[in-house]
C-alpha cells in the first residue's frame, strides 16, 4: 500500500489557542485510517487543514503522492481530497443528479448534458448498491441516503482521499451498516479513507489504523489488529492536572428537580434527580441527546412521555415561559444564537427573561439600566456601561451577560449547557466561582459539558449519555476521564 497523503510536523494556532501541536499523520491508498479523540481534541481542525479550509502554521509540511503541496479548498478538490462533513451541505430542492454535478456540470456547447449526467449518477449509485433514483430531490432522502449521495459524488470525481467526519452520527443501526459497507467498497478502489467517529465499535469494525489525538497533540498510532478498546480509551484520556479547577464543595440539600422516565426530542426513558447544593454533570459525546433533554426540561421541545417534578411537585412545561415561572434557568450552549440579543444592550439582555415574572405593563429604561449596571459590577463584566451592545463584548463577557439575564429572574434550578465554551481562561474561573456561589445559596445545577476537566472538577455526580439514553452514573472518586469515556463510547459490557 502506498502513501497518498502525509502531514509532517503540522501545528495550528488561533489567537490565544494552540489547536494542533506538531502533528504527523499519513493515510495510504486502500486503507481506512481512523481519528479518535474526545470532543475538542483537535480532530476538526486537522480535517480542516486536510481539506484546505485552514492553513497550517509555518514549518508544517503537507505531501500529496510524495510531492510537497499547499492545500486550499480548491486545490484539495483538484487533488481528489473530498471531505464529507457531519452536517450535510446539500441543495434540498435539487435532484440527486444535480447535487452531484452542481459546480462541475457536463456541458457541450454550453448546454447541460442532462442524460449523460443522469446515467453517470445512476451508475455510481448502483455501484454503491443503492437503488435510489437519481431524479429524487434531496429533500426526500433520509440523512443516511444523503450521506450515500455525498460519497457517490466523491467517488465519481476520481477521489484519492475521502474524509468522513462523523458519518454515522444520529443514524439508525441499519443506516450505519449501509455506510460501513460503502466505506469498504470505497477502500477497495484504492482510495485512502480518513474516518472520524465517536463510536469505537465502528472504528474496530472498519479501521486499519487508528490515530489518537488529545489536546491538539498526537498521542499514538496503532494498527487495529490486536488493539483493544481499553488501550484506545487510555490513550484518549490523561489530561494535564493543571487544567482542573479546585472547587469548594457544599452540603447537599433536598431534591430540587426530579426527572422520571422522560422520553421525547430524541431522548429515551431518562430518569435522574438533582439536589440543591450539587452540580449534576451530564457527559457524553456531542449528539448523544444531552442538549435535547435540556430543551425538553425547559419546555423548548415537547415531552412525549414521563414526568418532571420540581420540589416534589409535578410540573408541565408547555413553553420556556412556564419553566421560568417554575424558577428554571437555561444557559444555552450557543449563546450567540439562542442566548443573546447581540444587537441590543447589556441592560436589555439582562431584563428580557425576568419579564415573565413581573406584572407591570410599563417598564422604565432607567430601571433596566440600573439592573444592568448592578450585574455589570456583580459579575465583573468588562464593558464601559450597561448601554454597551453585547455584540461588542468578548466571549467570556457575553457569557456573563447570559448569567446576568438568568440571575435577574431569581431562578433556583440552573441548566448550564457548555458553561465555558469559547470563553477565555480568566472568565472560565470566574464562571466556576459563580456556579459555586449559586450552590452556596442552595440552588441546584445541571451541567452539560463536553469539556472533560470541567465535568470532572465541577460535578458532584455525573450521568453519561449515549444515543439518547443514560449509559451510567458516576459519583465522587469514580468520576474519571476513563470511566466517562468508557460509558460514552465504549462497549457497556466491557
Amino acid at each position: 500500500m502506498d502513501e497518498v497523503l502525509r502531514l509532517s510536523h503540522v501545528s495550528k494556532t488561533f489567537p490565544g489557542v494552540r489547536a494542533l501541536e506538531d502533528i504527523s499523520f499519513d493515510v495510504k491508498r486502500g486503507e481506512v485510517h481512523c481519528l479518535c479523540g474526545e470532543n475538542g481534541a483537535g480532530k476538526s481542525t486537522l480535517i480542516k487543514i486536510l481539506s484546505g479550509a485552514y492553513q497550517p502554521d509555518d514549518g508544517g509540511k503537507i505531501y500529496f503522492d510524495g510531492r510537497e503541496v499547499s492545500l486550499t479548498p480548491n486545490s484539495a478538490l483538484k487533488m481528489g481530497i473530498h471531505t464529507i462533513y457531519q452536517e450535510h451541505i446539500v441543495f434540498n430542492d435539487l435532484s440527486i443528479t444535480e447535487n452531484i454535478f452542481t459546480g462541475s456540470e457536463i456541458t457541450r456547447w454550453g448546454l447541460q448534458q442532462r442524460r449523460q449526467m443522469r446515467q453517470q449518477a445512476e451508475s455510481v449509485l448502483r455501484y454503491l448498491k443503492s437503488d435510489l433514483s437519481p431524479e429524487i430531490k434531496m429533500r426526500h432522502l433520509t440523512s443516511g441516503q444523503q450521506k450515500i449521495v455525498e460519497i457517490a459524488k466523491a467517488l465519481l470525481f476520481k477521489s484519492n482521499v475521502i474524509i468522513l467526519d462523523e458519518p454515522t452520527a444520529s443514524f439508525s443501526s441499519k443506516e450505519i451498516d449501509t455506510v460501513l459497507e460503502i466505506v469498504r467498497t470505497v477502500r477497495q478502489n484504492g482510495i485512502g479513507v480518513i474516518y472520524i467517529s465517536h463510536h469505537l465499535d465502528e472504528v474496530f469494525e472498519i479501521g486499519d489504523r487508528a490515530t489518537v489525538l488529545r489536546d491538539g497533540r498526537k498521542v499514538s498510532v496503532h494498527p487495529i489488529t490486536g488493539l483493544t478498546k481499553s488501550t484506545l480509551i487510555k490513550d484518549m484520556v490523561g489530561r494535564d492536572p493543571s487544567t482542573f479547577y479546585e472547587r469548594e464543595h457544599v452540603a447537599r440539600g433536598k431534591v430540587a428537580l426530579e426527572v422520571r422516565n422522560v422520553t421525547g426530542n430524541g431522548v429515551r426513558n431518562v430518569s435522574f434527580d438533582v439536589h440543591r447544593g450539587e452540580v449534576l454533570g451530564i457527559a457524553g459525546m456531542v449528539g448523544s441527546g444531552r442538549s435535547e433533554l435540556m430543551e425538553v426540561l425547559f419546555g423548548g421541545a415537547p415531552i412525549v412521555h414521563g414526568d418532571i417534578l420540581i420540589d416534589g411537585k409535578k410540573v408541565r412545561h408547555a413553553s420556556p415561559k412556564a419553566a421560568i415561572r417554575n424558577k428554571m434557568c437555561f444557559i444555552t450552549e450557543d449563546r450567540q444564537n439562542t442566548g443573546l440579543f447581540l444587537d441590543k444592550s447589556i441592560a436589555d439582555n439582562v431584563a428580557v427573561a425576568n419579564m415573565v415574572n413581573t406584572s407591570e405593563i410599563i417598564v422604565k429604561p432607567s430601571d433596566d439600566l440600573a439592573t444592568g449596571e448592578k450585574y455589570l459590577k456583580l459579575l465583573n463584566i468588562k464593558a464601559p456601561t450597561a448601554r454597551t451592545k453585547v455584540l461588542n463584548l468578548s466571549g467570556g463577557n457575553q457569557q456573563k451577560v447570559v448569567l446576568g439575564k438568568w440571575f435577574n429572574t431569581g431562578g433556583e434550578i440552573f441548566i448550564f449547557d457548555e458553561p465555558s465554551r469559547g470563553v477565555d481562561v480568566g472568565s472560565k474561573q470566574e464562571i466556576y466561582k459563580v456556579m459555586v456561589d449559586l450552590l452556596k445559596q442552595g440552588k441546584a445545577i445541571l451541567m452539560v459539558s463536553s469539556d472533560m476537566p470541567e465535568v470532572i472538577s465541577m460535578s458532584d455526580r455525573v450521568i453519561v449519555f449515549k444515543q439518547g439514553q443514560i449509559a451510567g452514573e458516576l459519583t465522587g472518586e469514580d468520576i474519571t476521564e476513563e470511566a466517562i469515556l468508557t460509558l460514552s463510547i465504549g462497549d457497556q459490557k466491557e
Partner: protein
Amino acid sequence: MSKREITNAAAGVKESLFKRHENLTVLSIFLSFVVIIVGLQLISTGFAAYPTFISPVNILNILQQVAVPGIIAVSMTMVMISGGIDLSVGMLASLVSIVVSLGISRWGLGVVPSIALGVSAAVVLESAMGFIISRTRIEPFIITLGGMISFQGIALLLSNSREVVMKGELDFLTMNLIDGARDPVTGLVLRLPPYVLVFFLIALIGGLTLTYTKFGRRIYAVGTNPRAAFLAGIDVANMRLAVFAIQGLLVGIGATMLLARINTGIITLGQGLEIDTIAMVVIGGTALSGGRGNIVGTLIGVLFLGSIANAMNMLRLPSEVQFLAKGLIVIIAVSAGDISSRISDYRTLKREQAKARATAAQAKQGGADKKQEPQAELQNPPV
C-alpha cells in the same frame, strides 16, 4: 469561533456618534434636503422672497398630507421591528373606507357604528393574517400579499365595483381647529384638522409603547432573535399576532380619516399606501430583518417622504420626476446608514492593521519569525 469575538473586543466599545444615535443619519439627510430646497428657492427668487417651503401654511399642508400614511407607518414600524411586513394595508384601507361609507350612506347604520364596523373589520382581518403568520412558518410577505388581493376582492364585491359617495357625514374629522388664523408671511388661511393631531397622538403612544412597556421591549426581542426570545419566556407567536392586530386598528383609524378627506369610499383610496408607509418606515431606519427601528426615525421618514412631493411642486418640477426623487431618496437614506457603518468598520480595520504591523515589527526585532500570524488574523474583517 473565538476569533470573531476577539476582533469584536478589539474593535473597541467606543462607537461613532452616528452609531450611538441611530436616527442621526437620516435626520441629517433630511435636514440637508430642507436646506437644499430652501436654498434653491432663495436662489430662484434672487433672495427677494421668503422661502415658501418652510412657511407655516406649507408645513401644515405637508402635515395634512402625511397624517394618514403616518398613522399607518406607526403600526408598520411595530410589525417590521417584530420581523414582519404588511403589504395589505393599502387595500385594507380601501376596504375600510368602502365599509364605512356604505354603512353611513346605504345601510343607514349611523356614523359612529359605521366607523366602529370598519375599524373592527380591519382588526379582524389583520388578526386573521397575523394568526396564520404566527402559527405557521409562511413568510409574512406572502400572507399579506394574499391578503391584499383578497381585500381588493371583498371591497369590489361590497361596492359593486362602484364608488360610494357620502354627503359629508365625516366632516367633523376635517374641520379647521384654528379657524381664522392666517399665515403671517403669505396671508393664506391656515388649516389644522383634527386628524393631524390624531397622527401625533398615535405616534406619541406608539413611541412610548415601544420604549416604555414590556410589550414594546418584547417586540424588539422577537425581531432580533426569535429563538432566544422564546427561550427567555416570551410568547413569540402571540407577540406576532398582536402587532398585526394593532396594525388593523391603525389602518382602520387611518382609512376613516382618509375617507373624511375625500368624502367618497372608493377602491383607489388606499392605492400605493403600503409602498409609502413601508418606504417611510425604512427611511426611518427600521430594519427589514427586524429588531431595529423606532418611532422617532419613522416620524422623520414620514415627514421626509411627505415633503418630497411638496418640494418638487414648489420648484415647479414635473410630477413624473417625483417618483424618481422618492425612489432615490429611499435608496440614499437606507444606504447611508450602511455606508457610515462600513466606513467606521474600515477605520477600525486600518487601526488594527497598524497595531498588528507594529507588533509584528517588534517581534521581528526580537528575532522571532511570526510575520505570518497577525496577517492571517486580519483577513477576517470585523463583523
